[in-house]
């Protein structure tokens, strides 16, 4: 199977991926990690709001809404 690494932003609703990298400063990384979104976690896109709205993701029962800018800095591995 070919594995691709793409920003979370490019995943579509309902799709899954594995977090491989959080690109940003310490503050950003901690903020994301304490929400349960760490490297190695499998995540699912729950919803994408229209008109540049935020994205809601889920990992092991933790659900978080993040802006699209942040979604661009979280990299996931997809099959």
């Amino acid at each position, binding site marked *: 199977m070919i594995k691709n690494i793409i920003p979370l932003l490019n995943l579509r609703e309902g799709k899954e991926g594995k977090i491989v990298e959080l690109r940003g400063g310490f503050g950003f990384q901690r903020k994301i990690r304490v929400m349960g979104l760490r490297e190695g976690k499998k995540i699912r896109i*729950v919803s994408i709001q229209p008109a540049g709205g*935020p994205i809601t993701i889920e990992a092991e029962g933790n659900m978080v809404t993040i802006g699209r800018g942040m979604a661009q800095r979280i990299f996931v591995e997809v099959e």
Partner: protein
Amino acid sequence: MKKIILMGSPNVGKSVVFSRLTGANVIASNYPGTTVDFSKGSMRLDGEKYEIIDAPGTYSLTPTNKAEEVALKIFKKGDIIINVVDATNLERNLYLTLEILEKKKPTIVALNLWDEAQHTGITIDVKKLEEILGVPVVPTTALTGEGIKELISRLKEAKISKTRSTSEKEKWVKIGKIIKSVEKVEHRHHTIRETIVDATIKPATGIPLAFLIIIVSFWVVRFIGETLVNYIFDPIFELYKPVALQISHLLGPGILHDIIIGRLVNGDISFMESMGLLTTGIYVPFAAVLPYIIAFYLILSILEDSGYLPRLATLVDNVFHKLGMHGHSIVTVFLGLGCNVPGALSTRILETRKQRFISATLLAISVPCMAQTAMVFGILGRYGLQYILMVFLTLMILYLLMGLLLNKIIQGESPEIFLEIPPYRRPSLLATLKKTWMRVRWFLKDAIPWLFLGVVLVNILYSIGFIDWIGNLFAPVIEGILGLSKGATTALLVGFLRKDLAVGMLLPLNMTPYQLVIAATILTIYFPCVATFTVLLKELGLKDMIKSTVIMILTALTVGGILRLILIGW
């Protein structure tokens, strides 16, 4: 007195644990120098009295907003720390736990939401976790009260962990190891329940559902409010009326009568218009506004504690982001619809100055509090629903336009939304009632003194002729630009003290419905009441508050002028 501090992330049921520990005597305090409030209570332990504080929720000891800064400050003053942890999310909660343990304070961990963890197939080896952390760990289900007794009885076992200081990276590695050795998770499938849960956050289904939930909520608020008025408050005031008339009789005419009872309308007391301390002064806050405030905050607390609000915040974020804020600002709007004071306080959860400024200014300009809403219904209700709609529609359009404008003008950043969406949970009755009471308390504490002062002031100013003088002074603006009667000046003046008091002053002026629409809209926009003003002053600082005030007055005049052109013509 020794202090026990409750520390934990948001949404772990910390305040439910707090309610269980403290019982009835809880007070909300203001952290010195800030507007962040927290709950404080007391409990007895082996005959010794302890103060117990529910610190604002925080994900780590590195603060990212004002509330988290306060949590850190409170933490530092604690003698015993109860770290409330979400058992269904042990892994990420352990970050804060490790940070707390490294601060070397006597600590005990409450593993809350224990029943939910078991239902979702999570098993945690409590004994082992206790060994690794080096402090007592007690499983609790605060909602039902399970485990709270053990938590209390083991409080004195709280001790300083031997864990050594580690870097952030090391902590995550450590957390990974801990989880591996204490937690077992049955493989989870995407259940039907989760699909239904997702429907409230997906735009196609979530937006219609949001409208439905909001409409039903307001309908319930109205129903509860009206029931309280019709069956409790109005009957009480009916019983009280002969007493007031007796007092009126005893006092005889004169300034004292004017202040205490006010003027009689057709020989009888009119609770809305008499303007006396013992008539309008107590009727308006208790019978006209309070019932709706109680109903409103009760429903809002349920929406909040059930976990719906973050979903709503997600759905509206794209709109709010264009107004320079983010979705969470809808909480400020909702709180403000009850009373602007808790609304203004809630702006502290926003990260930047720009967001707080826009959120607070828009709140003051175009979010009518329950007293204002009562006022709008009070003066326009008799003419028909369309006039009331005109006022609210104007305010809504104004909120959007001003937001777009302020987002362009105000310097600074508006960061993106970043919000945890907790699972749906049944709200705890105890915690919900406590929350409702804390919010109602803001209204009672601030509204009543200002109402009384307003009543006294109006009567004194009338008798010395000041009202006529100021009426003439502002006549060019009030009559010329806004097209209102001269007498409306007084109402606007009094409206600064209390908006609801202004109704009684607008009623006798015999203005047309259109004039009343303008007056009601202006009353909402031009200035917040004194109570909100003082909170905003603290929250924003003097410089920003002056800016905000200038914006309010200019907006009021512009909107008033435009409405006049549309509704009355020149």
